[in-house]
């Protein structure tokens, strides 16, 4: 499977933080037999190595986890209470359909409910419902009925279809960061199908736990000790109505973003120019990500193992961390092309710091 078809499969998988098994399984099946070495560490990071002509190591990384919820309590009526796992805008939760479960368990449906508007006080109507006043309705008869299929500690993720709409747009949950995973798989497939021996020794890293703590990327970078890292992400961009020009980070349809700075990393300007320059040279659309917000696995990777030179590339994504993340399909393929160019580059062509 390839491109946005693979993206669809990955996006619809169930994989909140620290429960990335289903995603890992899809990736492992997809890459079977196309690498030289494979390694799974104790917290679930998956590393696939394709040997290069030189001993210089490049870490290409994307995280498998998505934002989710964790069931923290079940009340006498069989309603579930929950905690966020990862950063949420509370306003995107109300009324959403969910899948609830855990690794190896059958998923059940539920939806996030809260007090109906005619029962809310005047003060409550003015504000977004806080997370501790929301609950999940799974249609259970009572507590015992609910506990037959859900345990405290189970996860919930959005139940949201992957659809194509409008002028080449895609809407789905978990674009952050199944998109990065999908692009990495596409690169492995391309190298395999074209029987390429890359210049760099390539480590394709599918990390866990980015949305909470970025532990997976830290451990992986310390294990590999790469000479160069490329982090593939999806990023919030705000190219939407009501946002002033200087607060718009990037634009859908203009290709992948190369980040200048975010809250976790100041990217090396020589490498930013290198990545944008490769795009220009090969006629691949790309753009700098301008507005400074958020952070990625790069924040851990660049500080790890005595310092790692790091590039962050991200697909511009609207409404990130919601049930309906929106990307432009063409950006996906431009991102694949640019990431491939970087993956196949020679260490001699990367500027010195």
């Amino acid at each position, binding site marked *: 499977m390839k491109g946005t078809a693979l993206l669809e499969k990955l996006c619809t998988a169930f994989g909140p933080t620290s429960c990335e098994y289903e995603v890992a399984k899809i990736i492992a099946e997809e890459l079977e037999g196309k690498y030289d070495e494979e390694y799974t560490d104790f917290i679930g990071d998956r590393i696939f190595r394709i040997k290069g002509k030189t001993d210089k190591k490049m870490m290409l990384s994307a995280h498998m986890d998505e934002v989710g919820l964790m069931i923290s309590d079940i009340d006498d009526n069989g309603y579930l209470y929950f905690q966020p796992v990862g950063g949420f805008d509370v306003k995107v939760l109300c009324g959403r359909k969910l899948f609830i479960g855990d690794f190896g368990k059958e998923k059940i449906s539920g939806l996030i409910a809260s007090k109906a508007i005619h029962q809310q006080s005047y003060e409550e109507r003015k504000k977004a419902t806080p997370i501790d006043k929301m609950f999940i309705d799974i249609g259970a008869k009572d507590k015992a009925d609910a506990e037959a299929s859900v345990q405290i500690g189970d996860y919930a993720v959005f139940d949201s279809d992957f659809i194509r709409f409008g002028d080449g747009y895609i809407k789905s949950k978990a674009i952050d960061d199944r998109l990065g995973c999908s692009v990495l798989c596409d690169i492995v497939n391309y190298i395999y199908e074209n029987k390429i021996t890359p210049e760099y020794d390539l480590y394709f890293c599918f990390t866990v736990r980015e949305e909470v703590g970025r532990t997976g990327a830290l451990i992986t970078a310390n294990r590999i000790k790469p*000479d160069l890292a490329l982090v593939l992400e999806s990023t919030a961009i705000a190219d939407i109505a009501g946002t002033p*020009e*200087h*607060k*718009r980070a990037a634009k859908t349809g203009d290709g992948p973003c190369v980040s*200048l*700075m975010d809250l976790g*990393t*100041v*990217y*090396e*300007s020589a490498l*930013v120019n290198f990545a944008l320059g490769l795009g220009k040279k090969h006629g691949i659309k790309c753009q*700098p990500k*301008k*507005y*400074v917000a958020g952070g990625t696995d790069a924040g851990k990777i*660049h*500080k*790890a*193992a*005595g*310092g*790692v*030179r790091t590039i962050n590339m991200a697909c511009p994504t609207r409404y990130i961390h919601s049930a309906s993340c929106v990307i432009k399909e063409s950006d996906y393929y431009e991102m694949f092309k640019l990431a491939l160019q970087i993956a196949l580059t020679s260490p001699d062509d990367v500027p010195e*710091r």
Partner: protein
Amino acid sequence: MINELKKLMKIQGVSSREDKVAAYIEEAVKPYVDEIKRDPLGNLICLKKGTSKKAKKIMLCAHMDEIGFMVNCIQDNGIVRVSRVGGINYIAYSNSRVVFENGAVGVLVPEGKTELKDYNGDKFYVDLGVKTKAEAERRVKLGEMCSVESGIVKLYGTKYAGRPFDDRIGCYVMIEIAKKLGKCKNDVYFVFSVQEEVGCRGSHAASYNVLPDIGIAFDVTPSGDVVNPSTNFSVKLGDGAAIKIKDSSVMCDRALVAAMFEAAKANNIKHQTEVLTYGGTDTSSMQTVAGGSRAGCISIPTRFCHTQNEIVDMKDVEACIDLGVLCCSFDL
């Protein structure tokens, strides 16, 4: 002596753009150390080898970077929007001259209707005195960094005002330690770190590369002898080197702190105790990276940190240098 400090203060080095500062320091310490290297993040790591076969590794660390801004948008009317790099006090920096990496100059101002309580990065812009986007783009580029005009002036006695004392004064202290050290039994690593202002990122990598037994940071600390301080600090300008017990990022090693007090007392070096309720320094990364180390910090008392006019007393600076030299011989 003060002329060297003046030069060091004039060189720009916003977080991640410390190369010019590093080049200057490299020249200054070269005669006094045995090995010099830069690591992948740009930390300048200089080793002076010890005379003992059982030498401990002592890492001294001061950061080369200063707070500043990065260009993140050039608008049609030539207005330049910038993001903060490090902890910026917009009230202190409002209506200041800023200098870009390439020498271009602008003025950092708030949008007209902004009330003082709403001061934040989104409300500020740099006026380059241009009319169009094209004119602005001839002067500055997206991603380029700038900082508020630097330099120092002499106040009363041995006191000086200016920026960025945070943390060129720490770099200066370490350069002077390198000059004064002479023969020492321990391996002393003089580490001039990058990207401290954005979260002690450089020292994180540097500590991994050095793996010290003892780590000592040299950085500024707020001085409590101001009118109506926001919190109570005991640290005062002119009362000597401040030996850090804690800040919000670290609890310093007790044995190292005790040894510092003992050395200061035995050698009549003016010193005081620092207990800081906020802030963070490279001390924290030295303490926790890899297997960890005994970590502490000798602070230079500084009034009005992160403003255009940070004030230090050169007598305190000398005390820090003298105490720093003694710390290089510690065996803990």
